[in-house]
């Protein structure tokens, strides 16, 4: 087996959907962006030197005790409220007991039968503009584990590794686990629903300001449970279809991009369908998603009987959020993303398709921030959906991960509007900013990209061009105005692009026409 594993036999998607009805359950782990960890005062900065952000508490040293981070609780309650959940009036933490080297106490402080938030929903907009309601089972608080790296061996997994390293910087980072109820009735749109749900959730969490929601850094992670049941009706939402018992599920862990979620669910549907169609069983197990080959491979077999011996965490006092405080937090909720999208569309004057593209590209926030920073909606859209989308794509990044800020994009556009840059130069400035050379103004200065706005050098170049291409100049004088283009080109070449072409044309025409 290679590093990425090889897939099993799959059924064509259409065939799979003709025979089976998919049911999904999505578990999303969100790292909160609190300054300190869930139960101690250690910083949470991403990418720090391994084991530099640890203390007796998050290392699980003998005697150390947890203390709840009030900001973590606040984030959990706000997430619960934004997901239309009921907030528990009294709840506790619980210990989830199992042994693993990256878990300092060999139990995870989590919540079990008393989650902070439960019974909610999120309305998710699909590509065609229709809405799918995702029922939320619960959102609960817990702590992240450390991070193991397995060195040596072919797979990067613990089996076959020569040795393993553990970084406890991540241990104790506040996590909120958001669990959906079984998603039924999505039919052949199940993969799309999965992607759209995580996307909507990500937008919501970002709007709440509670998390960095960077899937590539693991601050938003999704586990997708998928099972198939026999299709008995063309309509996935029909009551006969809903009456069919669920099949055995697989759980694909840590799928870390929106596109991968859709692909992974789709793959699981076709893989499970092939097994069922061949009369084989689906194994209840965790599976790993391989981005490069687009397949999942078997992980650990997981039975429902797996016993974590949960019991209420005696080191933490019960949580009883006061109703008044919860209501006060409710007033801090941002506008729901769908409503906000409709408002922004109107404000920006975008067409339905334009807006949908923007949303699907995850560019709404960036455009909004760029507009706030002074750019027009049209130019903001042009940058984020054009050059910047292309740059992100080339680099395999999400738009939000590009090393350019909306304020820098607005600054760039202002330079274009002021005539300091033309579009071609502006694209070079983008390259510079993305390469870490500084802000637009710095890149313009450092690379010498500014348009020559002083007429002196331009006039010299214009006259040189007229002299060098006397034949063309004569044609223009003779009334063939279109021929001026060749002269403009010559001047621009002479100026190495750093001239405003419109101004060059103007200067040429002044000299060649009465």
């Amino acid at each position, binding site marked *: 087996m290679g590093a990425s594993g090889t897939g099993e036999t799959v059924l064509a998607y259409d065939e799979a959907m003709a025979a089976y009805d998919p049911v999904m359950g999505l578990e999303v782990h969100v790292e909160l962006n609190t300054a300190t960890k869930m139960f101690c005062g250690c910083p949470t900065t991403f990418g720090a030197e391994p084991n530099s952000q640890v203390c007796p508490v998050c290392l699980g040293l003998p*005697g150390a005790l947890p203390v709840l981070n009030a900001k973590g609780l606040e984030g959990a309650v706000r997430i619960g409220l934004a997901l239309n959940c009921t907030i528990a009036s009294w709840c506790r933490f619980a210990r989830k007991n199992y042994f693993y080297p990256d878990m300092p106490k060999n139990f995870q402080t989590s919540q079990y039968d008393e989650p902070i938030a439960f019974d909610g929903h999120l309305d998710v907009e699909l590509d065609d503009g229709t809405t799918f309601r995702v029922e939320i089972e619960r959102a609960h608080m817990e702590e992240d584990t450390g991070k193991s790296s397995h060195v040596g061996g072919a797979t990067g997994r613990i089996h076959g590794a020569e040795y393993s390293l553990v970084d406890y910087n991540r241990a104790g980072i506040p996590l909120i686990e958001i669990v959906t109820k079984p998603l039924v009735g999505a039919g052949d749109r199940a993969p799309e629903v999965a992607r759209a749900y995580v996307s909507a959730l990500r937008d919501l969490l970002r709007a709440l300001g509670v998390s960095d929601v960077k899937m590539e850094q693991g601050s938003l992670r999704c586990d997708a449970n998928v099972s198939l049941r026999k299709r008995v009706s063309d309509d996935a939402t029909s009551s006969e279809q809903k009456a069919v018992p669920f099949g055995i599920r697989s759980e694909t862990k840590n799928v870390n991009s929106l596109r991968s979620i859709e692909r992974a669910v789709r793959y699981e549907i076709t893989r499970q369908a092939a097994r069922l169609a061949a009369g084989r069983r689906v194994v209840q197990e965790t599976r790993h998603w391989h981005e490069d080959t687009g397949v999942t491979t078997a992980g650990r077999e997981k039975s429902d009987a797996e016993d974590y011996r949960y*019991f209420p965490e005696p080191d933490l006092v019960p949580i009883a959020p006061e109703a008044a405080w919860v209501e006060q937090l409710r007033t801090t909720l941002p506008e729901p993303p769908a409503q906000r999208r409709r408002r922004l569309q109107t404000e920006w004057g975008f067409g339905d398709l334009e807006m949908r593209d923007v949303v699907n590209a995850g560019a709404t926030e960036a455009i909004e921030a760029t507009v706030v920073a002074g750019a027009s909606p049209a130019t903001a859209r042009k940058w984020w959906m054009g050059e910047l989308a292309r740059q992100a794509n080339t680099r395999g990044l999400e738009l939000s991960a590009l090393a350019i800020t909306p304020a820098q994009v607005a600054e760039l556009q202002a330079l274009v509007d002021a005539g300091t840059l033309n579009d071609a130069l502006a694209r070079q400035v983008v390259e510079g900013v993305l390469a870490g050379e500084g802000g637009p103004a710095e890149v313009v200065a450092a690379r010498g990209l500014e348009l020559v706005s002083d007429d002196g050098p331009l006039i010299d170049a214009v006259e040189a061009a007229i002299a060098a291409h006397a034949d063309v100049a004569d044609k223009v004088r003779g009334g063939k105005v279109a021929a001026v283009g060749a002269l403009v080109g010559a001047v621009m070449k002479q100026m190495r692009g750093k001239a405003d072409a419109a101004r060059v044309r103007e200067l040429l025409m002044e000299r060649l026409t009465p």
Partner: protein
Amino acid sequence: MATELTHHTAAQLAEGLRAQQFSAVEVTRAHLNRIAEVDGDVHAYLHIAGNTALATARSVDAALAAGEQLPALAGVPIAVKDVMATQGVPTTCGSAILKGWVPPYDASVIRRIKDARMPILGKTNMDEFAMGSSTEHSAYGPTRNPWDLTRIPGGSGGGSAATLASFTAPLATGTDTGGSIRQPAAVTGTVGVKPTYGAVSRYGLVALASSLDQAGPCARTVLDAALLHEVMAGHDPMDSTSLTGQYPDVVAAARRGALGDLGGVTVGVVRELGGDGYQAGVRQRFDEAVDLLTAAGAKVVEVSCPSFTAALGAYYLILPSEASSNLAKFDAMRYGIRVYPKGVDDPTAEQVMAATREVGFGAEVKRRIILGTYALSSGYYDAYYGSAQKVRTLIQRDFAAAFEVADVLISPTSPTTAFPLGDKLDDPLSMYLQDVATIPANLAGVPGMSLPAGLAEEDGLPVGLQILAPARCDDRLYLVGAAVEAALTSRWGGALLDRAPSLDREAV
């Protein structure tokens, strides 16, 4: 004898230091010498921290010479139970699995002791991870009872109690999960207090059962216990279960109690904690104490706490459950010993964990981990852990009802006097029964004290009297305890410990 510095009470030492009758270095040195002299026999200490103790003493002397205002117990040495994390000083909890572990941090209660400028003499022996009533479950060998070196000093805090009874420390700390402060106090003729749950921070105490553990003072007199109690107790933001708000003045209560007037105090004798199963000499000393209380003006009534009979059973479900989880962290990955499995070429992390825990934990620890793991398992949780929590609620109700009619409750601390070493090692249940009278207080979170009630006639060994009070009313323990102590010492013509063997080499 009583003029020796090691035989002063903590209160006397504090007074003498302030009056500069002797120096803190002299006091610390006297104790270190005494340790060198007698602790080979007693084995109360696992680790002696002589140099740092003397350094603290020197700084106290310098401060006293400079006329600085110092905390009440500055310069008074103390022994610390090895379950408390001490920065730079080994902390083993009496377990082989933590052999060689030197904590990088101080428990909050250690921080408070250091802030009080008290020289820490060393770390005291204990049953492994505080599981036991005899200190025989220490991986480093048992502690012997200074009253009779062939007998147990109680447990788990037998080491701390023995330092007091052998005069190798004037004060010591303990932790009490089901009686680990009070039962050793009872069988060594010393004073031990389990404060209200949450009064003393648990941060840095290696947890046995988080919902039951409570640290407290061990001393030779009620006043000394109060002075140390005051140092140890106080809110700690590092412990979520730490009490906030008003806490009573225990030192004032001890001084008031010593005047001997208990007029207006109602004392409840708990019917379920006595009678059959309690040694005759223990019952006799207890009955005398009841008479003394009456003579001091207290009204004595009998109260019934029917659920107490289920306390031991509930305790031995809750404690192992929490302990099985608390002890999971000892896995050879980050600290403590690491043992590789024999005959395995390329062991997995899981195999190393298992091999280390197999070698590193003693039999009693394994027994309780297995019990707790079982009690928490799905399918058994409701029947065991769930039912035990219900019993706990019933016990709390019994206490509440009893405290409606009585200000404090009393009982013998332990059903027996110190038993011979090895006597109960093969019979865990009879060992567990040692704590039958002390466990209810832990299940309810209420404070309790044990103080000497005299010697049992049949064996001449110390008997303890237990006093229990409502949560946050720790002062009542000291009021009543000091009154009983005053009456008894006057009857005896001196402290009970004056009758203990001297242990001096030349005297043997």
